[in-house]
């Protein structure tokens, strides 16, 4: 499992209302949700983002509502991984449950600038800033959670247990 892409950078307390405003929660269409992703604070994001890109932010990423539409919108917009200093807890479990990679790494959050080319090795937790020729070590997932991400999320891991 790896990720490789351009960094999109935001600050502290990026909340779920700016990731996907509630007025769009009348749809479950991943594509439609993605088209409004981050628009409250960055109207250009959805035009700039490319498949595989990486989002980098500060403290408490994903605070606010429990809407799973938030990680869904980011994933559908093309984001392969979110790196933050830390995450709000419901966003953290939602991302894991839908099989989206997220990493807590204050050094990477400080070191990576918008537009940097970044590679992530999920097995080792090593984040490489190709543009700046730096590496950062993220906290590895506990085995319980890593297992769930590898299987593709909570539902897939449940089906696996049943089989």
């Amino acid at each position, binding site marked *: 499992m790896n990720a490789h892409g351009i960094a999109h950078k935001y600050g502290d*307390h990026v*909340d779920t*209302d*700016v990731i996907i*405003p*509630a*007025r769009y*929660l*009348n*749809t*479950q269409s991943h594509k439609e949700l993605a088209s409004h992703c981050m628009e*409250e*604070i960055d109207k250009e994001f959805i035009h700039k983002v490319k498949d595989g890109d990486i989002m980098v932010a500060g*403290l*408490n990423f994903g*605070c*606010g*509502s*429990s*809407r*799973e*539409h938030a990680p*869904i919108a980011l994933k559908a917009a093309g984001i392969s991984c979110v790196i933050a200093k*830390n995450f*709000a*807890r*419901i966003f953290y*479990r*939602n991302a894991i*449950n*839908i099989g989206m990679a997220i990493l807590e790494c204050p050094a990477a959050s400080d070191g990576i600038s918008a537009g940097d080319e970044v590679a992530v090795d999920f097995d080792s937790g090593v984040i490489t800033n190709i543009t700046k020729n730096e590496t950062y070590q993220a906290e590895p997932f*506990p085995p*319980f*959670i890593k297992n769930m991400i590898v299987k593709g*999320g*909570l*539902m*897939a891991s*449940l*089906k696996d247990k049943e089989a």
Partner: protein
Amino acid sequence: MGMTMTQKILAAHAGLPEVRSGQLIQSKLDLIMGNDITTPVAINEFEAAGFDRVFDKSKIALVMDHFVPNKDIKAATQCKQCRAFARRFDIDHYYDVGTMGIEHALLPEKGLVAPGEAVIGADSHTCTYGALGSFSTGVGSTDIGAAMATGELWFKVPSAIKVNLTGKLRPYVSGKDVILTLIGMIGVDGARYQSLEFTGPGVAALTIYDRLTICNMAIEAGAKNGIFPVDDITRAYVEGRVDRPWTTYEADADAEYERTIDLDLSQVDCTVAWPHLPENAHSAREGKDIAIDQIVIGSCTNGQLADMAAAAEVLKGRHLAKDVRGIIIPATEHVYRECMRLGYTDIFLDAGCVVSTPTCGPCLGGYMGILAEGERCVSTTNRNFVGRMGHAKSEVYLASPAVAAASGIAGHISHPEEVVNK
């Protein structure tokens, strides 16, 4: 080392003699809740995984409250999907227009949550029910999809902050002011991943509605849950509503806490959180220069009968300032009916307000009170993030019902004393 109240409830539901903070556990659940915007995503996951039964149709509550009565065709389609799912599995607690209320006011009112129970909901404010001495927390749609099939869910056992309450609230000061003050002290991530365990002699001076409001906004400090001990006030509320046996848990005397915060209730004043984070706490007395366009009184945070009474007390015999719109939303059908019986509805209408059927609508910028660019609202809701109630350049000021009512009358942010003693 002993366990916190939250840890004791989790240990009991995981079938373990004890749990430690940081431990990953699988917990049995007493109730699983979803609403009209989170349940459709859960149903999709449930069906895609191939489940063909729910674990217990009496332990699932589906409440259509966010965008109902349906705000548009897409919202109607989502409710239709929830309704079909509820019928397919004969879900006992399905609430639609006519029986619904705002979920976190409705579930306690209907006796669906009892002390000592473990409850999840696909809504971040599910932490409200900690007011009754239960463990309750917000999760995602996939979580409830899985839990509806299995009756269980994974949790990381939280550590806790002990909030030691002393003293007694002054007139016009309420649970809303307590929680806004606390979030102002510790920040929107001050209790991230932790429990907020309220304790101390001040607990007995807080009504059940103060406690519900305080626990409701535990998430706004990043907390996994907020929880109050079970006392006579809890028992008085629960008796006559809950008809099944329930268990009282108490924190061990030697329970471990990350830290203790002392809060003297007599020192709390009417508090307003300025945009764009709930931690931006100010005294309501600082708002004279902040002219407003709208007030909203309602929501899962402050839509109970006690909140309506607080608003009515200030609005009685007075009228909203020119060009201020007042939207009042009793949280449940019961609260709505009581507002009529007690004359509150007349007071609200005489003051120039409108009174809506229960809905979450304006709180999250769905409908029923959206703000235009540059507009300001004093709202008894729970979030004031960028764009929360409408345009990205509108502003939401979070406050209690008494402060919202006073601000509506004054035309600017105002302390109730400034309006009532005028």
